[in-house]
């Protein structure tokens, strides 16, 4: 996984609340067996009309937002399906940081597995930051310091320390868990004794 340390850029602001994963990447693109190549179809139905032409009104179709690395969104972002294609599509488009007042649990977790930082901020701060999007001004995000700098202002954010470490170091969490192999083996041994039906023994 690619590390996430810090980022600077003009954010794109999507004010819609409850953006679900069907909206982020519709089902016709879930037929892939790869993780890459989904960026062009990110927010497909908001981005293209029935004939496949770009909808000019949509923010990610406009300059400079078509190059945004930071997405600011309405609350409960990523609700619905567990599809990891949603963060894959964001990443493939170039977005590595999302800022919202809340996320759906599965989506939130999926971001961390892909080097994307989802930041939780209160609505008031989201409003302030959205002005920077409107004015096409850069903001910067520093994960180590857990802060967003915009103009002369600064907003601190919370993050789980383990998730932070994994992002900063780009850690492979399967490798980390496999370091606990002995513990898993002894758990399985006990399980076979105490609940033999689990293994159908």
């Amino acid at each position, binding site marked *: 996984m690619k590390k996430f340390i810090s980022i600077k850029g003009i954010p794109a602001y999507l004010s819609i609340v409850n953006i679900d994963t069907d*909206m982020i990447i519709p*089902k016709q693109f879930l*037929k892939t067996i790869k993780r890459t190549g989904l960026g062009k179809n990110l927010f497909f139905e908001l981005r293209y009309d029935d004939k496949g032409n770009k909808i000019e009104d949509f923010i990610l179709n406009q300059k400079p937002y078509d190059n945004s690395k930071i997405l600011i969104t309405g609350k409960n972002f990523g609700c619905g399906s567990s599809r990891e294609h949603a963060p894959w599509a964001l990443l493939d488009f170039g977005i590595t940081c999302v800022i919202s007042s809340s996320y759906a649990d599965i989506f939130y977790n999926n971001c961390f597995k892909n080097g994307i930082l989802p930041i939780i901020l209160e609505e008031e701060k989201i409003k302030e930051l959205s002005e920077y999007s409107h004015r096409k001004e850069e903001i910067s995000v520093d994960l180590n310091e857990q802060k967003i700098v915009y103009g002369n202002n600064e907003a601190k954010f919370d993050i789980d320390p383990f998730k932070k470490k994994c992002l900063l170091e780009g850690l492979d969490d399967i490798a980390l868990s496999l370091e606990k192999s002995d513990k898993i083996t002894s758990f399985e041994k006990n399980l076979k004794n105490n609940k033999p039906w689990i293994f159908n023994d």
Partner: protein
Amino acid sequence: MPYTLYDKIWNEHLVYQQEDGTSLLFVDRHLIHEVTSPQAFEGLRNSNRNVRQPSLTLAVADHNVPTTDRSKGIDDKESKIQVDTLEANCKQFGIKLFGMNDKRQGIVHIIGPEQGFTQPGTVIVCGDSHTATHGAFGSLAFGIGTSEVEHVLATQTLVQKKAKNFRINVNGKLPLGVTSKDVILQIIGKIGTAGGTGCVIEYSGSLISSLSVEQRMTICNMTIEGGARAGLIEPDKKIFDYLKDKPMSPKKENWEKALNNWKNLKSDRDAKFDKEISLEGKEILPMVTWGTSPQDVITIEGKVPNPNNEKDTDRKNSIERSLKYMGLKPDTAAKDIKIDKVFIGSCTNGRIEDLREAAKILKNKTKASHVEAMVVPGSGLVKQQAEQEGLDKIFISSGFEWREPGCSMCLAMNADKLKPEERCASTSNRNFEGRQGRGGRTHLVSPGMAAAAAISGNLDDVRKYQN
């Protein structure tokens, strides 16, 4: 210290816990399907890793499969690649698979319980958000992403942090014509789609205990629509009777041992819940959704909301956006909403009791002439059972199409989908924009309500057709 059922299952599955609470949780049962697993297997191959416990894993193709004649295979090239890839991966790693032409094939959340793979007190995961369904058996069941699927395949564990405990009590009796689908829609309307975020919900109360096993699955299934990853119900005799003699249920002395364990799976009487709400059965009416989020519910006697009555700007904008997408005017009566299609099926309502409920309404009646309607049984075994009971004949003679099992028009990955602006009464779980096809308009209802809508040609009150 008193514990909730969730606390107990969590504690029993803890392999390792870091100081900050990040935990490694053992997974007893892993279900996989063709859409969210290929990249996980690819990841295993790329890093030279193996599947740790193939025997605790069960695979089925459900999202992409055609629901029409399957004898010639899958027409859609990409769908075929995904289904073939699942088959090849299962073969390589020694995982049991119900292939497309196996009569046990069906929607992953229907076949788990049907085979007895789903068991009380277990941790069950699947790369699908409706994994919460299995919580009806008193298991901790939740959806995961593909990277987590890979993690479970490689380690049989998952990195997790403990969620909060949320109890929803539903007491009393279900009024005539009201089903567990209406109960869960009402709950989601009450708590909102983010109401359960960060929580595991335990459903309890006299009404919940009175429900059949399949009705309980409908409730737990839609837990994710309320934002909670898992919902569970204390297992009881109905659950144990349901599981007895299922193909993958414990046998002989293991059955006795399992039963002794399962009987203790309940929240302690004085267990603490972080959140709690209560509902009365008598307040629940047949429900429909009007908008593009499962929280957009009204009763069949109600009207579509008027954004001008909303003070909250976000909410007002969201109502306006939904109404525009749905092609509805504010204050329209639910019963005045004309429909084009009816879909009966999905992991929410594709089981035998759901089909019986719809068939009961449709018996000796025909659908409105302008409506196209289809029934997609949840599994091959559900289909077989329905045919033995003659339900297929009732559906067909009332003008429904009788299809092969799969996810079908719940998410429209296969050929079954709505055209732009087509309106559907659907027994599925999501009414998101574009969910059943680009521009398609979904109204979520119970199977009986879907049948009533097919007959009337508009959303209608199932109680009108009940004897």
